[in-house]
């Protein structure tokens, strides 16, 4: 399978994604420069974390206008898999690929630490190797990860099982105390209705090796590979 990792100016988790996909998961991966005209030949596009264009305005607000986003849109419309991690998630929201918006964290501080996630929907292209309710240990690192959606949108997300991950404690319970950023309904990751675009605040690329403290992130990359193989058959 061939992954493409987009490099916006200011992306800084691009190499980390590359390493996790190539060296840990053993799949093919290339960078896609934000000025690239042609992005054919990829099975999955990754929008990595970082501070695209500095994010001085609002996270993802400039990147959504990057010419490469038109190509990503076409790719997704053809059914290609797209994953936005952290800043990538913020860009997908700003670009309208996913419903909702991000606010600053409830404590108004950047926060970087390992947290626990509960898999709410294991029947997606991104989580098919997980069990329902499985608890993953994956780090977060962001200032704007406080997810918000209107009541209507939230109820649609719930009804259509588009909420993929929620913040929880070690035991899998969801409480205000363990919600690190104040996200509505403790949402950590959502997908679109079609199920081919995922946005998540936690960084699976940072938790693919035991030496880094967790290998749970691998489940996401491997799920993607599994579903791509199924599609290709």
């Amino acid at each position, binding site marked *: 399978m061939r992954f493409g990792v987009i490099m916006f100016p200011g992306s800084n988790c691009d190499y980390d994604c590359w390493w996790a996909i190539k060296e840990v998961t053993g799949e093919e991966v290339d960078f896609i420069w934000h000025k690239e005209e042609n992005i054919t030949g990829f099975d999955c596009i990754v929008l990595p974390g970082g501070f695209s264009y500095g994010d001085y305005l609002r996270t993802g607000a400039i990147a959504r206008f990057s010419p490469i986003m038109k190509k990503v849109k076409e790719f997704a419309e053809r059914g290609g898999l797209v994953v936005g991690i952290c800043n990538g998630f913020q860009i997908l929201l700003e670009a309208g690929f996913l419903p909702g918006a991000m606010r600053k964290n409830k404590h108004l501080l950047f926060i*970087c630490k390992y947290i626990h996630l509960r898999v709410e929907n294991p029947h997606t292209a991104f989580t098919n190797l997980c069990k329902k309710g499985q608890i993953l240990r994956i780090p977060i690192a962001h200032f704007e990860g406080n997810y918000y959606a209107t009541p209507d949108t939230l109820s649609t997300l719930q009804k259509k099982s588009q909420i993929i991950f929620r913040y929880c404690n070690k035991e899998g319970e969801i409480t205000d105390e363990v919600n690190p950023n104040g996200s509505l309904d403790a949402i950590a990751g959502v997908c679109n209705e079609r199920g081919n675009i995922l946005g998540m605040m936690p960084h699976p690329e940072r938790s693919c090796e035991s030496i880094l403290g967790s290998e749970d992130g691998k489940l996401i990359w491997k799920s993607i590979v599994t579903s791509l193989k199924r599609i290709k058959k």
Partner: protein
Amino acid sequence: MKEPVKIDKDLIKVHGLTDEEYEKIKEVLGREPNFTELGIFSVMWSEHCSYKSSKPVLRKFPTQGDNILVRAGEENAGAADIGDGFAAVFKMESHNHPSAIEPFQGAATGAGGIIRDIFTMGARPIALMDSLRFGCLSDARSRYLLKGVVGGVAFYGNCIGIPTVGGETFFDKTYQGNPLVNVLCLGIVKKDKIVKAQAKGEGNTIFYVGSSTGRDGLGGASFASRELTDESHEDRPAVQICDPFMEKLLLEATLELIESAVVVGMQDMGAAGLTSSTVETASRGNSGIEIDISLVPRREEGMIPYEVMLSESQERMLVIVKKGKEEEAKKIFEKWDLHAAPIGRVTSGNSFLVKDGGKIAAEIPVKALTTDAPVYLREKTKPEYLDGVRNLDLSDVPLPEDLNSIFLKMLSSPNIVSKSWVFEQYDHMVGTNTILLPGADAAVVRMKGTKKALALSCDGNGRYCYLDPYEGGKIAVAEAARNVVCVGAKPLAITNCLNFGTPTDPEIFWQFSRCVEGMAEACKELKTPVTGGNVSFYNENPQGAVDPTPVVGMLGLIEDIDYLCTPWFKKEGDLVCLLGEGEKSLGGSEYLYHVHNLKKGQPPKLNLHLEKALQKTCLEAIKKGLINSAHDVSDGGLAITLAECCILNEENLMGADINLKESEREDVILFGEAESQIIISCSSSNLNKLKKIVRENKVTLKVLGRVGGEKLTIKKEEKPLISQSIQELYTTWKNSLSSYFEM
């Protein structure tokens, strides 16, 4: 700004130049300087750029070693050989004054500046560390400064994508109003790709790259070279504004440029901006240099040559490109949307020529501004306060009745508590190399594609140095080395930040000299040469000078990451042992300060031979896989160190039962501080093998107790002194710092 018509005495004084220095300028030029030249001399001869007071003292540092590739002072940062064809480039720098008046921007630009020093040498930065000191947390201004400084480092490091992997945060009223903000950056480069900061080869082109030039940061180097006063906030325009996104582009473009082999040399435009970068690169290349400042991109109208030359606008670099390769270089800059302008060329001869279109704005011999700048042998006198404060009569220190509550009080001291409120604001994981998260004795980053990892530790104890600058200097180096040893790394070399008061005060200069002598002694004995660093004088507030505070940044190398060691207890039933034996002292201890409000006594003495043997023993034990944890005994003494061993791993708290066979006073036993001691834990089956190594190295090992249970109990001759649930210890330690910021 308008050019003054005449240079008079007041103008000379405002520029921080003495009458003698002005006479010397006239002698060098053979005429009166013009206004632009006066400004150039003033910044290049400032303490900040010229090290005119510290140079003769810094010569005492050992700077040579088998693995030293770039020695202190040769380039913008030092470089050490780490094998496999790679070099580690690292340096620490202070940004104290800017942070005192504008904490967020001051700290952020401090981080930005040191990062540029690393990547302009061709190295990819892989880690940041910060060493921060503030006044008391109970003071609102100190909390404001802490919040701003941490926010600034976070903003810069997080955005540019370099993990801030650890550091230290310390509070003491001596730093009230004059915080210390020292940031260290570590980078990795292939040995043969190290780029020099030199302008060489007649006709090669000088490129100006990055942000445009404005009036921000005007005269920052001079600002850094005087004391802070009540009016210092009026110097706010001397603090620069940062743009980490621009720096990220500069970083990537620079490394790409170096790969393409079109670069002769490059330098960051840091303190004294365009002036120092052009002059210093020419000086190192033994060349002349000619620039036309009408070609310098500007963001403000009507700037006079003086302002262009002295601006400290951030995120700008000077790149010397091989003649004929200009287009190739431009293409790379354009790819990264960077503005790059050719503004001059390298010349033969030795003249620094600044043109403004057709007019000559300044013409000065290069070396007059660098190697031939004035150097002073400052007077030094042993401070009068010393005899008084060294005397500590223990009978004046009441022994607390309830040691359990004192123990909790110690654990909630801002200097002991978990610093997670600080480091969780830093992205400490980006790069996916951080294999030991912040909070351990040292930070560890792996080198992808090898079995190796680099360990970093920042240490310095201003109280010890206040009470005994020489021992304090020694201890700063030894403790930093011990910290990297505790994670399994061999200490290689140091960088440092020397934070002191006003150097023309003989008592301050005595402190400075003694600290440096102590550090030099320890560096020689432990074979960790000094690869560079920075001196920050004039750290004074209206109440006086800060405690003398040298901060050491130690680099260590782990050959095999399978033998990484961590400080926390791991297995029920493991033996808890004390490796090494140093004499305990309450002098300068956290206990004396936090519980009894005293800063007195003789700090612990350090025997460097014992220290060396201890470090060798610990490393051997780790490499042979004999021990399960190692933690340096430091601030707060044995009791606090043991508590940390129990609670540092949040995922798995572990109790311990300890019995001490000591005869001293209970508070000395528990909270007295000593050097050359490490708490280790090991399985009892390894004890004999461990004892053998201990004997061979002539150090001592005492079994203190066992790991296990839900409590930490410390007894003296079987009589309980402390018994606390580890959950309570954890909660106290974990939440104390953030409680200062909850609304």
